[in-house]
């Protein structure tokens, strides 16, 4: 209270602009017309303005699974020194062009600027740096000159985990051979993430640089079919498994084997390979994760009307909220608290019907997310050209012999990794979705980096060796 009874307003002082620089994107009407990348990327001026919002607190570094040096690479944008930014990013992440587009960005969820405004657009700034540096400049800037340790490491799976491990192992001078079942590298990033979110060119920019360090690729080589695990364990000094989660979970409901029911991963894989999955003009997608959302948005681009049936509420969906929002903007209809119970022939030939019931949410007595309970008196039946099932995916570990399985710790289809991603079997390391709980690209990348450190320690006689 000021003298004389007059009040004075306390001026609000902030050292940053609360609103992030808006990202230019394709509008929903335009975006569903093609597989063109939706996000256009910042201009140089926009990136510098956005970089100015960073207060350099460093909380993001601790939160990022790969512990990327976010404040410093953002500062490199302010300084206009993109080469420095690129070098900083490659210290802990050899997938900046990829993560700059599809990272789950836990860093942004803790950015303190977000408390009074919108968090710094860390992901877009990462993308900006990677996009500024031409691919043919990478070698000169990063100056990776792998030596030769005389040791050989086999990597199973050319996804983000496997290729991250390959990169950091090569930097330590170890020879690396990657065994990949598909005919291209990238794993789920290539075959599970649609190109409107991650164009092949961006992914290949990251992968090509990793491969340029002399990583030997064995494509179309499935371990367990084309080469046996025992051969790798015998023939290499260490083995890193990062095979991902590729087996779609089955709904296990009556009629699921109907020919018009497809797995979400299969639809995404077909599209990634340039083939038409033949989904027709009306599609139901079952699930609320990123695969479901991608399958729904891909279906829209293929010209279908899309309805998502999800057992819980929007806020319970594991999919990225941004993806959910964009899916809705693109015309995807989401029916929440809808539990599928049976698949059957539709009345119209060539179509499929699904019976589903409404759900009420009940609290979980153990404090988990509320659980849906089917209301059997409120059932519905709808017909579609195709039902896409995307309720989750699991691992296929059948390539590991029974004897080896006895030595490994596996729980709920995932490896339990020890320090440095090591297992109970000597020379065997694991990482990525098949060994972590989060199952996202950035965690797989960190697992690969961590395993590379562990393998290097192992190959050099245990301790020592520092950061890869």
């Amino acid at each position: 209270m000021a003298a004389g009874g007059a009040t004075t307003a306390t001026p609000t002082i902030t050292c940053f602009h609360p609103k992030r620089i808006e990202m230019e994107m394709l509008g929903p009407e335009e975006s569903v017309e093609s597989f063109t990348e939706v996000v256009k990327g910042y201009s140089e001026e926009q990136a510098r303005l956005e970089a100015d919002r960073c207060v350099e607190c460093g909380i993001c570094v601790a939160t990022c699974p790969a512990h990327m040096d976010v404040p410093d690479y953002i500062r490199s944008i302010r300084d206009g020194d993109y080469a420095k930014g690129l070098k900083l990013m490659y210290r802990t992440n050899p997938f900046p062009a990829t993560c700059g587009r599809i990272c789950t960005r836990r860093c942004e969820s803790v950015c303190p600027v977000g408390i009074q405004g919108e968090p710094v657009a860390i992901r877009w700034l990462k993308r900006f740096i990677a996009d500024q540096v031409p691919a043919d400049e990478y070698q000169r800037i990063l100056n990776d000159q792998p030596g030769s340790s005389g040791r050989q490491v086999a990597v199973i799976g050319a996804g983000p985990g496997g290729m991250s491990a390959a990169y950091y192992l090569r930097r330590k001078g170890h020879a690396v051979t990657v065994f990949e079942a598909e005919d291209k590298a990238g794993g789920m990033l290539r075959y599970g993430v649609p190109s409107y979110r991650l164009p092949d060119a961006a992914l290949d920019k990251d992968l090509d640089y990793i491969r340029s360090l002399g990583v030997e690729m064995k494509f179309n080589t499935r371990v367990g079919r084309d080469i046996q695990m025992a051969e790798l364990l015998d023939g290499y000094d260490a083995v890193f498994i990062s095979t991902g989660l590729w087996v779609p979970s089955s709904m296990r409901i009556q009629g699921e084997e109907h020919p018009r029911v497809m797995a979400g991963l299969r639809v995404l894989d077909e599209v990634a390979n340039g083939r038409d999955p033949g989904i027709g003009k009306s599609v139901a997608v079952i699930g609320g994760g990123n695969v479901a959302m991608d399958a729904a948005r891909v279906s829209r681009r293929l010209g279908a009307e899309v309805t998502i049936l999800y057992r819980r509420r929007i806020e319970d969906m594991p999919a990225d909220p941004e993806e959910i929002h964009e899916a809705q903007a693109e015309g995807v209809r989401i029916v929440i608290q809808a539990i599928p119970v049976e698949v059957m022939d539709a009345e119209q030939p060539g179509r499929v019907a699904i019976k589903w019931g409404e759900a009420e949410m009940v609290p979980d007595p153990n404090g988990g997310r509320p659980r849906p309970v089917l209301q059997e008196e409120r059932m519905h039946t709808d017909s579609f050209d195709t039902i896409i099932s995307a309720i989750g995916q699991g691992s296929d570990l059948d390539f590991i012999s029974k004897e080896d399985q006895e030595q490994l710790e596996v729980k709920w289809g995932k490896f339990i990794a020890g320090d440095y991603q090591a297992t109970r079997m000597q020379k065997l390391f694991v990482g990525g979705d098949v060994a972590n709980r989060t199952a996202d690209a950035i965690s797989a990348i960190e697992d690969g980096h961590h395993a590379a450190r562990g393998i290097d320690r192992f190959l050099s006689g245990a301790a020592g060796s520092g950061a890869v």
Partner: protein
Amino acid sequence: MNTVDEVLDYAIGQEEEVAAFYASLAQRAEKAGMKDVLMDFSREEQRHKERLLAVKQGEHELTPEQNVVDLKITDYLVDVDASDDISYQDALIVAMKRERAAYRLYSDMAGKVPEGELKEVFVGLAKEEAKHKLFFESQYDERVLSDN
């Protein structure tokens, strides 16, 4: 089954049988990690058996809760084989179906006996089985229906 002790002995025998079933399946399980999962199931059934033994000896009461939530996940799932290459998803389905069958048995029995101590025991056993079913259904909800 005309006395409370006879009913409890039957229930204890059932839990023992199911525990042995999971232990046997665990020995044959081919998929990575399934031995441990099935042995966990077996130990869970052993705990149920011990709980019922405690009830029989008057050291414990049957489930006192008014109602146990029925997620109804089991009701619409197809039957699966308890084969040697059983997956985690199918192992949970087998477990849920077994708990549901036991729940239905005791519920039916409760409906067939007059009011009294015997009926209370059947109702109590049905609630125990409902709780066990909820345990497995919650696991299925969390781990198999992770994206759903």
